[in-house]
């Protein structure tokens, strides 16, 4: 039996097709989100990769910011529950999740059964999210993919103290004009994201294993900065952008079994 999870985010669309609630048959990411062609493109990619048709999918669960806008789902489930489900499936020792996506960041506390015990999300502010990194990457003229490499080379990380993305942008510009090395500035940018994430983590309660997901988890510089701040190891979920869609596909599987 095949089930599908679709995570319609603000900045990207993710689809996971799951075989028998176990094997990931497809996990596709398109870097545009709700309101765009992203969800359909991710869906088409996943179907063509598996050679399946929509009729072959027993159930679909939608999650993410655009979960209600996507029409083809049997059910909508919040991204909190879906991330928890997906990550626990991949790493059952997970007790704390930090998920940083394009527009929000969330800290989720799980119990030993993988149930959500508590969660906190950032308030509506781009600080500490993927959007913050996008802005900095543009100002620094360093692609998002290269940022981790740069920060790994930092000898003397700078401090980016402004919370507000706009203020931080001008702070970074002034550091650039003072001739501070981009490596050091980027390390400071990562540190800034990490400290916002850790504020959420501390509120939810930190317990190992700590697992990071979301698009920003692909940036090892941020992962390392969070680990440094917590003084604890931080694992990265495999294919970290698709854990929400995976959780949705797992819920879809449970639904399909029930009906």
């Amino acid at each position, binding site marked *: 039996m095949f089930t599908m999870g679709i995570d319609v985010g603000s900045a990207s669309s993710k689809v996971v097709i799951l075989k028998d609630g176990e094997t990931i048959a497809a996990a596709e990411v398109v870097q545009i989100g709700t309101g765009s062609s992203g969800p359909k493109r991710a869906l088409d990619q996943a179907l063509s990769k598996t050679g399946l048709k929509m009729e072959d999918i027993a159930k679909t669960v939608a999650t993410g*910011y655009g979960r*209600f806008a996507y029409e083809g789902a049997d059910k*909508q*489930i*919040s*991204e*909190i*529950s879906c991330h928890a489900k997906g990550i626990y499936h991949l790493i059952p020792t997970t007790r704390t999740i930090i998920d940083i996506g394009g527009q*929000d960041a969330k800290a989720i506390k799980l119990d030993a059964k993988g*149930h*959500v*015990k*508590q*969660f*906190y*999300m950032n*308030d*509506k502010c781009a600080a500490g999210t993927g959007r913050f990194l996008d802005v900095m990457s543009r100002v620094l003229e360093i692609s998002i993919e290269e940022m981790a490499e740069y920060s790994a080379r930092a000898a003397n990380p700078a401090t980016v103290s402004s919370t507000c993305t706009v203020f931080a942008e001008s702070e970074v510009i002034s550091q650039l004009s003072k001739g501070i090395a981009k490596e050091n500035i980027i390390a400071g940018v990562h540190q800034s994201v990490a400290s916002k994430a850790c504020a959420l983590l501390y*509120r939810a309660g930190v317990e190992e294993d700590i697992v990071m997901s979301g698009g920003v988890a692909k940036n090892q510089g941020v992962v390392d900065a969070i680990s440094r701040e917590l003084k604890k190891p931080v694992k990265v979920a495999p294919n970290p952008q698709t854990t929400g869609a995976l959780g949705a596909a797992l819920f879809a599987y449970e639904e399909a079994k029930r009906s």
Partner: protein
Amino acid sequence: MSELNLESMSAKQLLAYYSEKAYQDANEAHKNGKLICWSASVAPSEFCDAMDICTVYPENHAAAIGARKGSPALLELAEKKGYSIDCCSYARVNFGYLELLKEEALTGVTPQALADAPADRLPLPDLVITCNNLCNTLLKWYENLAAELHIPCIVIDVPFNHTVPMPQYAKDYVKSQFQYAIEQLEQICGRPFDYDKFLEVQKQAQRSVAAWDRVAKMTSYKPSPMNGFDFFNYMALIVCARSKKDSEIVFNKLADELEEKLKKGEYAFGDNEKFRFTWEGIACWPYLGHTFKSLRSLGVLLTGSGYPGMWSLHYTPGNMDEMAEAYASIYTNVALPEKVDAIGKVIEGGKCDGIAYHINRSCKIMSFLTVETADMVKEKTKVPFVTFDGDQTDPSNFSPAQFDTRVQALAEMMEQEAAEKDKKAQ
């Protein structure tokens, strides 16, 4: 109005009638040269009522404007005047409104924005009365009103309760504040304080509060005949007509109707009451409909809220110690353990499965302690909670999609807890 048959009207019709009447009476009183007072929402209303001063409530008024989506224009006016967006949006709406009233009074021409404001007219005040049992914003807000209009400002200063029960010296202090307010009123009115009427007013306030308590009890039934969002609608009267017969009539009518529904087995969500929750904090007035619908679609019924309960002020008429304690001990003015206790009781009373905390950009007093409060309440009650960001009257500080995600996650957590309980029971 006299040909209206109040007996045959529903509670909802009565609410509309008396809410409108409160403003009509005030405008009429203003025209007839009677004194008008603007009052903070949990300042004691009994003193002005005893002196036949007509009182209106800017927080109430701002909430009504917010609920009818009229706040942005007034917030903008206040901002132009220099009020920071970090100030409470009730205050900002009121300062925006004040600008328009002043312009009208000075020019004789009604500004368009005033004519367009979707609320009953507030007459300009002759005095203001405030009390810091809720917050200190209310001090500066009312002092500012008084300074802008060159009118007297009566302040009932109450000490913060670090311990319970409230110590006698603190009660004595609040009583001295009452006494000073009485003296100020005597001066403003030019006649001695009417202690006989004061006692009558106190008695009426207690009857109204008893009727309000009757309503509050209705959400303790499971399933509940009452949708707790109605607290937010009906509370207008416990705020602005607390010491008037009007509120007693409406609340008793509502309680009668709900008791009738209960008897007939008619419940707020029919047979779709899946979960019950507590809304901690002020409503998001501009999004009242959205927040309600979002929760209803999840089968989540509001059955607890500490905010409307703040006006459940109990004392024996004539007993000033008790009156001082009632006004000084509302849950915004007590130490954290007592606040946690109060919220715990709300959860228990409403048989709630979860709680959502409104982190209100406007209201620091109701928000800054939330993280600690939430953890302590969770420890005590074990029910899951979420927090969401919002604002009671500034729509720009609320995101419907973010609200929906958080409450959906709460519903999922409640479902999980229920499934666990079922498993254990088997």
